[in-house]
């Protein structure tokens, strides 16, 4: 029951965000500072997810050392992403690196 309510809530806010501007057919416009602000949302949210996932992989404290396979693989993914600028390559190489480091360590 809680699960159904949670999914309904998620569906409601997601559709609401996507629909509000289209529903008003352009009568509803953003001030330019709000538009600029929205640009910062994706990298902010994604970074706030990535950093703990990579640095606190086991949920007990920051693991900033070379035995941390997620950290090493994340560095590889970053380098590949900066060089190749291609999402799928970044993901595939990152996952292979993660598998390798996990196996090696």
């Amino acid at each position, binding site marked *: 029951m809680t699960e159904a309510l949670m999914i309904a809530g998620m569906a409601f806010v997601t559709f609401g965000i996507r629909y509000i501007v289209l529903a008003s057919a352009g009568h509803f416009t953003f001030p330019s500072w709000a538009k600029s602000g929205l640009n910062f949302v994706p990298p902010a949210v994604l*970074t706030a997810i990535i950093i703990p996932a990579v640095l606190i992989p086991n949920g007990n404290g920051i693991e900033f050392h070379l035995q941390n396979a997620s950290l090493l693989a994340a560095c590889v993914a970053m380098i590949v992403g900066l060089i190749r600028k291609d999402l799928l390559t970044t993901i595939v190489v990152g996952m292979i690196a993660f598998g390798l480091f996990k196996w090696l360590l």
Partner: protein
Amino acid sequence: MMSEAQAPDNCCVIDESQNISGSEILQEILSGSRATLPMVVGAIPFGIIFGTLAEQSGLSPFGAIAMSIFVFAGSSQFIALGLLAAGTGPLIIIATTFIVNLRHLLYSAAIVDDVKHLSGPWRAVIAFGLTDEAFATIVDKIRKSDDAWRLRSVQWFYLGSFGTMYGNWILCTIIGITLGELVPEMSNWGLDFAMSATFIGMVLPYLNTRPMMACVLVAGAMSLGTADMPHKLGLMVSALSAVAVGLSYHLMSRRK
């Protein structure tokens, strides 16, 4: 035809859309589907991984499918799994979904002028399907096409584009759930790192201005500092502080 209910000032639009024949509609749908295909292929691993991770995160198979059908927003679905696995309550998960999907406001604002000739139900369909992929596809197509095409065919092209993405997403979720049940040890393969790798690849293209770098640095530092906050509230606190810093930096550097 759905676009009959038009404001009077859009009279010409009705003529345009009434001219379109069944076979042309089919062609537009197919062409939209084809244009989205590379991104559909890219989404396959994520749909499958989402389905595979669902059960171990505490989401029922039925809930996972329902999420793909009704929410249809990849990154927030993954984040919801992460939060569920950490024992987070539904209200925080819904609030986080809201923050994570706020970027779609930009998408709808970017295309509203190109679709405002369409009827209310059509605009609702477009809104429902407005994922990162559908947005990228339709913007690219509109940029390459003329107004006559847009007024006549944009909704059919979009339907093909979003429909392919949507069907694929639901199908891959089901495949993932099935795989997860057939091969339980898959959860040890480190598939969850796929999410980190994906997000890294998505953040990198943003890092081309100083305000953006400041925003990302604040998000990263805050996320470590707030990691112990209850209910995973740290994610929202970090993201909002990072946006505030990035935006202030942006506004200040423009004023000079």
